[in-house]
């Protein structure tokens, strides 16, 4: 039984997304602007 439970201990690894990924997401969020007009919404990405 123990063998089954510990077959892949990596599955329980605690990891975090890299700071670059987080930084990209924050920059993406800052650059994204949603403009709503006449019931339609338009995405502007101001990079």
């Amino acid at each position, binding site marked *: 039984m123990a063998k089954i439970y510990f077959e892949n201990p990596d599955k329980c*690894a605690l990891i975090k*997304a890299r700071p670059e990924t*987080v930084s990209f997401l924050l920059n993406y969020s800052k650059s994204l602007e949603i403009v709503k007009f006449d019931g339609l919404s338009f995405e502007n990405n101001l990079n």
Partner: protein
Amino acid sequence: MELQIDDSVLVRDYMNGDERALELLISKHNQRISSFIYSKVMDREITEDIFQDTFIKVIRTLKRGTYSEEGKFLPWVMRIAHNLIIDHFRKNRRMPRFEGNDDFNIFSLICDDRLNAERQIIKDQIDSDLELLIEELPEDQRTVLIMRIYRDMSFKEISENTGVSINTALGRMRYALINLRKIIERNNIVLTN
């Protein structure tokens, strides 16, 4: 001690334009979401990609104002991540990915042996130049060379077809090559690529 602000407050602040709220949300749930994705895909790079795509969806939904606080924020994000993980496996099943290693490289089996466009043009040019040069050779030498090189005939077959001995055919071939080299040198022709 760090003050834990409720997710719903952070979501509302972010929807009202507070970018710092997103940073707090990501930092608060980073480990949980990343570990969840990693436990399914077991690949660090794919985990980064799916984490990024998940939050891009979150950001777009929140910025559009289409997010409704029916459930909790984290289960919603986890559901997005879960759907993207399924998409990832579906995509890989349609288009299986094979990665070679040091012992075996798939490209050694499936490589394309054809010349690229530039090399093909150069080869065609050389072939046509060579045909013109062969035309300059005396008739008997030209016949032997064409039979040997272009028709891949043996010297025995050449001798039978031309009615000369094998030694004569060999001699004509030798002189054909010597004369070709002379013509090339005399005219400063470059036949290599």
